[in-house]
Structures are given as structure tokens and as C-alpha cells.
């Protein structure tokens, strides 16, 4: 096919400059919030800036963020997985069970990750092969997975993990930097590249925006979603390994309520809950914001329930702000 180069006029690539788009972005707004909270924390407590304190504090977001990265991709395609905390419970229980049978650290890790992937596969098959809605399926498996953990454990706990297993949750890679921070950074970069620089990532946005048009454009919609459920399962398994390692024990109530904190992190990060938009950078900043808020309030001895009120308020506030500004602007125009 010959293409004539004599077009009537040239359409520019971009409407706005890179700087303009950056300033208008959600991520910059969120970064502003993060910086504010950072300074508030330094004022609130003299212990906040201590590197070892900061390093310890990182545990309250790193494990959740691992899952949040995968969850972000899932939510971008218009699906959700609410069973992630249930997967952690089942995965941790499986590791504890294997421990009783004498498994060593490598086997434990392998089991933790595999159970995560299997749970993800179970969700994925129900959703992509049978066409059930993911919110319903994963509310079901949320109880199912944790229920199995309760049946196995009752009110018991698995203890006595080997000392070399504790490296994932408690070990330091170098200086004050924990292995969990290293994993967090590597995953942030990995997921960022996957979502923003590859064909696979582009197709997630397409599916989230218009699944029918995606199918009509040759995108393998169901297969892509299946991969994401497996990935979310794998990340939940990884979080289970890190958390179990850090706690040194498995109880059936492990990671209770995490699914909502993970979803909060994703949505706060600017991933549209309706699918189709958002970035990994946003999720990273959201993870830092949530970590700092929890840590800062902890230093001030604020009770946990007040923290959740604060996080909830923050979520609604940050989400509502741009909409509010838009409404006011629109009102003035009319």
C-alpha cells in the first residue's frame, strides 16, 4: 500500500507540554500531600527522623504495597481481588503446616508462593472461564481461604520458624535498609515498567476502558485478566512469606482486613476504581503517605481506631478535592 506523504496539515503529537501535564497530574498533588505529612511528622515528634525508626516504620506499608502493585493492575482492567488477605492466611497456614512436617526455609518460601498462585488461579478460573463477577467471587473466596486456615488452626498458632526464615521480614540488606524495602523498590520499578512501558501494560488500560472494543481489537481479554489474578495471588503469597517471617508465627487471623487497606492504597494512588486509569508512581506515593500517617500517629500514641478514621478521611478528602475544584470551576462558568 502506498501512503502519500502530502497531508493537508500536520496534527501535533501532544496537545500540552510535558511540564503542563505533570503539574496537572494526580501524582503531583499526592506528592504535595506526602511532603506536608512528612513535615507535620517532623514537627510532631523528634523521633520521626531517626533512620532506624523510619526503617522499622517501613514495615507497615511494604507488605501491603507488594499486593497493591498487582491489585492496581487488576483494578485498571476493571476487576478486583478482595481475597488477598484470605490468600495470606491460607498461604501462611500452609507454610506453618509444612514447617510441622519438617520443611526448611527454601521449601517454605516455595510453598508460600505456590499457594498464593493456586488461590489466584482458583479466582481467575471462576472469573474468566465462568464469567462470574470478580467482586462476588473474591468476597466468597475471601471467607473460603481464611476459613480453611481457621479449620486447620482453630485457636492454635504455628510457631518455631527457622532462624534463617526470618531474613525476609526482619533482615537488613545493607545499613538501615531492610530486605522488604529492597523488595518494595524492585517491585515498584518492575510493575512500573510493566504497566507503563510494555504492550501488556497498554492493553490493561484498553481493557479497563472498553472491554468489548478491546476484544474487537484482538486483545486477549480473558487471558490477560487470568494472568493478573495469578500475579495478584503470587504477590499475596510473597506478602505472606514476608509477614510470616516478620511475625515468626501463623495465626488464622493473620493480615485480617488487609484487603481494604490494599484497595485504599490503590485508590488513593489515583487508580480509578472504575478501571482504565492511574499509575504505579501514584500507588508508590500512596503507600508512603499511608505508611507515614500510621507511623506519625503511632509516635503520638494515637490509638489504632483513630488512625483508621484518619486514613478514611484522607482517602475521601484527597479523592473529593479535584472533583470539588472541578465543580466550583464549572459553577463559575455557568
Amino acid at each position, binding site marked *: *500500500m*502506498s*501512503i*502519500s506523504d502530502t*497531508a*493537508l496539515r*500536520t*496534527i*501535533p*503529537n*501532544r*496537545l500540552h507540554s510535558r511540564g503542563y501535564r505533570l503539574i496537572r497530574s494526580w501524582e503531583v498533588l499526592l506528592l504535595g500531600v506526602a511532603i506536608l505529612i512528612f513535615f507535620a511528622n517532623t514537627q510532631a515528634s523528634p523521633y520521626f527522623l531517626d533512620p532506624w525508626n523510619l526503617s522499622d516504620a517501613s514495615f507497615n506499608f511494604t507488605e501491603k504495597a507488594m499486593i497493591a502493585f498487582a491489585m492496581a493492575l487488576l483494578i485498571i482492567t476493571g476487576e478486583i481481588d478482595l481475597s488477598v488477605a484470605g490468600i495470606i492466611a491460607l498461604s501462611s497456614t500452609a507454610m506453618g503446616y509444612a514447617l510441622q512436617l519438617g520443611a526448611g526455609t527454601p521449601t517454605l518460601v516455595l510453598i508460600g508462593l505456590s499457594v498464593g498462585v493456586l488461590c489466584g488461579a482458583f479466582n481467575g478460573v471462576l472469573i474468566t472461564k465462568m464469567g462470574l463477577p470478580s467482586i462476588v467471587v473474591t468476597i466468597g473466596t475471601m471467607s473460603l481461604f481464611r476459613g480453611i486456615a481457621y479449620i486447620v488452626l482453630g485457636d492454635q498458632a504455628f510457631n518455631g520458624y527457622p532462624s534463617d526464615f526470618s531474613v525476609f521480614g526482619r533482615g537488613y540488606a545493607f545499613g538501615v535498609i531492610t530486605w522488604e524495602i529492597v523488595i518494595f523498590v524492585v517491585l515498584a520499578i518492575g510493575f512500573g515498567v510493566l504497566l507503563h*512501558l*510494555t*504492550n*501488556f*501494560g*497498554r*492493553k490493561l*488500560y*484498553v481493557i479497563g*476502558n*472498553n472491554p*468489548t*472494543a*478491546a*476484544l*474487537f*481489537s*484482538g*486483545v*486477549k481479554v480473558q487471558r490477560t485478566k487470568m494472568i493478573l489474578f495469578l500475579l495478584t495471588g503470587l504477590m499475596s503469597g510473597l506478602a505472606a512469606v514476608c509477614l510470616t517471617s516478620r511475625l515468626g508465627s501463623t495465626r488464622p487471623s493473620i493480615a485480617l482486613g488487609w484487603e481494604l487497606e490494599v484497595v485504599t492504597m490503590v485508590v488513593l494512588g489515583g487508580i480509578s476504581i472504575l478501571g*482504565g*486509569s492511574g499509575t504505579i508512581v501514584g500507588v508508590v506515593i500512596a503507600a508512603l503517605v499511608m505508611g507515614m500517617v500510621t507511623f506519625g500517629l503511632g509516635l503520638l500514641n494515637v490509638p489504632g481506631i483513630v488512625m483508621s478514621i484518619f486514613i478514611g478521611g484522607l482517602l475521601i478528602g484527597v479523592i473529593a478535592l479535584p472533583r470539588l475544584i472541578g465543580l466550583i470551576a464549572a459553577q463559575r462558568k*455557568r
Partner: protein
Amino acid sequence: MTLDNTKQPTAARGDTADLAPVLALRGITKTFPGVRALGGVDLALYPGQVTALVGENGAGKSTLVKVLTGIYRPDAGDIVIDDTPTQFQTATDASDAGVTAIHQETVLFDDLTVAENIFLGHAPRTRWGLIDWGTMRTQATEILTRIGANLDPDATLRELGIANKHLVAIARALSVQARVVVMDEPTAALSRAEIEELYDLVDRLKSEGKAILFISHKFDEIFRIADRYTVFRDGEMVGAGMIADITENKLVEMMVGRPVGQVFPTRSTNIGDEILRVAGYSHPTEFADINFGLRRGEILGFYGLVGAGRSEFMQALFGVTKPSKGAIKIDGKIAIIRSPNEAIEQGIVYVPEDRGKQGAITDLPIFQNVTLPSLGRISGNGFLKMAEEFSLARKYTERLDLRAAALDQNVGNLSGGNQQKVVIAKWLATLPKVIILDEPTKGIDVGSKAAVHEFMAELANEGLSVIMVSSEIPEILGMSDRVIVMREGRIVDEYDREGLTPEKLVRAAAGYEESA
């Protein structure tokens, strides 16, 4: 509210000189960020008359309908009802003033019954303030009978076809004692027989003294049912008058702002060897025993009534649905297509009829829409290459003369015709062998239509094979080298371009043996 519409004035029809408009718009201006949708337009609607509003897509017709129905508030200008200037603050104000609209895709509720849809928001009440179901049903039946619709008031909307849904929308319009009825492309999704019924209904509404604003792209129907016309171009009113005083060509000239010459492009018929052969394609419910061949550089038209199974067959050919039987050969080799992905690999692409749902991804930028099916080819080991994406997108969008501010503009911000160009560009970028165009010019303006036709001819001249599904007879006759007619899921006839007449097509599609 009572249903006594017969009291409406029906006099003064025909004699228009001293007729006062029911509703007039004066100097309506409406701007959106960066766009002036309406720049001081006037429009008058007279009792018992049909005013056709014509204009290309983007001329401001839809904005005007939204102003008229109270969805948008104009920046300037008056809405004058019975010589009293007024303002519609909300949609309720408009409906209280007797303005009602029947949209292209009707806005009714699938899970409610016919009666509930008709009376939603103004149902008759008992003295306890509860809905009076008995009266509602009786009144619904009464209105339905009056418009000649034989529908069960207790049937849910989901069970009805699009034509019957229109009837419900019209019944709704009558139930609120509308004085002004806005019809926004009401025939777009209707078959020929259904369109005839709609015309009868419009006549009935006229005789009841309603003022009707009729928006349409189809000239035959404008000349058939309208009494007056108003032409919009780029948000301005460029002409208005009586239909009897104007010709089709004049109207088109006014719309596009330039004289229109040959409607369909002439092209060198240089048809090559057979590229696609379909044998015995069948589906459990939608179509059966489809056999045909397609040659290089050929435009093959598929004509039929709505529901004849044309789109369903095309989607099976493209791998969206699975046929129960049948085989295809591409370039003489058996090809298996189980998904759109495999179809694209085999060089078959499909431009769907439902642009918004199946074609364009409206919230993503133009360039990402265009490159989507070609990503595998222009990326490096699965990694995106932005520069190549932009250049590929530019190459095809400029070839189609796309009108856009930038390639990273969201497709949803473009007009219908330009969205269609993006979808076509997307498929051309995959370098296909066969392109299936399903109602390629449905709902797009005259200018874009001509561009799509010209382009289709150009592609065929370059050796691309085109399958064009169309319900517009002039388009089928003007563009096709060969025409296949489908009826009730089967191929009933095949014609060469020579000697083909509209009558033959209509008869074959409807199944009449003799000319009706």
C-alpha cells in the same frame, strides 16, 4: 394529569404566513471550554408542522436538543414559548413547558413495564398518594391504541424491539401532553417497514397539532415528512424555510458550505483473484449456510433488513462469535479463526457498527487507539516505542484527513465522523487483506461520509478487498461491485453492479415476489 389531547389547536395548518410558533429560540449561544457549540442560533417550531433540523456532525444539533430539553443552560439567548421569553433551568422545566424528546437510542428503562415507562414521573395516583395501577394501565392502553401500537402495557421493555421502544417513547411524549416533540434521528435503527410506521405516527402527531423537530441525516425522509427546514453549520444557523421551496442539492450545499458534485467516487474496476472463500458458514440461531467468494480489490456490498443476520455473520467471520459449521479459505489456504486476534493475523479486520461500544476506546488518546492492534509489530520485545507509535498513528490519521487538535487527544472528544476515521485508521495500520465495514457511514455527517466513500474506493483500487454491510440503498448501489442480499440469516440473492435497481434490492430483502 388527564389525557385529553384533542383540545389542542389543530387549526391553521397549511397556511403558515400568520402562524405563530409554539416555541422559538432566539440568539441561543452555548460555549464549552475551547469550543463554541452554538453561536446565536434561531429556531422556530410551529404547531402541526414538522421542522427538519439538518447539519453535519458537530454543527451543534445535539447541543441544541440539550438546550431545548433543559439539559444545558445557554450562555445567552431566549427560549420563547407563546411569545413569553423563559428559561429552562432543569429538564423538569422543559417537560413542564411541554417539550419532550425521543432520542436516537431511546432513554427508557428495560426492566420496567410499558405502562411504567409511559407514566414514569407522572403516574396517576390514588387518593392515598399511591400509584393507581388500574387507571395507569387503562390510560396506557388508550394512548397505545391511539398511536396504533398493539403492545401489552404489562410487558417489560426488554422484551420489545427497538421500533416498539420508539412507540413507547412516543406514547410517553403523548402522555405528558407534549406540545413540542423532538425526534433525534428516530429512524437510525429501524427497518424499512418500521420507518413507514413511524412516518404514519408523525402524521398523526401533526394532525394533533404538535410541533415536531425532526433531526435526520437521511434526505429522503426529510423531504418525505418535513414541512420546514433549518440548517446549522459550525454552530450557526445558515438557512431556514419551507421544504417545498428547496432542492436536495441546495440543502447539502448549505450544510457543507460548498457545492457538492458527484456523490459517489468513480473508480477503476481492477478486480483480481479470489482472496477469501466462505463455505457453509452456519450459526445455531443467527445465520445459516453462507457461501460466497471475495476477490482482490473488490467492494462487496451486503444488503438486508435490520436483523437479517449480516452483522452476526461478519462478527463470526472476525472470530468474535463461533460458527457451528463452515470453513474459510484465505488465498486458497484453509484458515481457522477462533478469535479476533487470529482474524487480524490472517489479515481480516472488522469496523463494527456500534462505534462507541465496539470500535473506539473513547477515553484513550487517538494514537493509542490507532496503534492498538499493531503493537506487536511496532514494539521491541514487548516494550512500547512511543516515537514509532506516533509516526504510525500520524501516517494513517493524516491519510484519512482526521480533524483533531493533537494525537494525544481522547477519541471521545472527536465528532462521530472523526471517531470513525480513527477506527478505520486503526485497522488500515494492520495492513489487512480484507476489511469489513459494518454500516461505515451510519450517523456521520455528509462531509465525512463522502470522505469515507472516497477512501473506500481508493483502498479497493490499491488492491484491498472490502466487505461493506449497509442498509442505505444509495450507498450499496453507489459503492459495490457486487451485492449480496441476506434475509433471515440466509443469502437470498446476489447481483452484479450492472442493472441493479433499488426495487430489486428491496424486494429481495423483504421477500416480495412481485413489486409492491
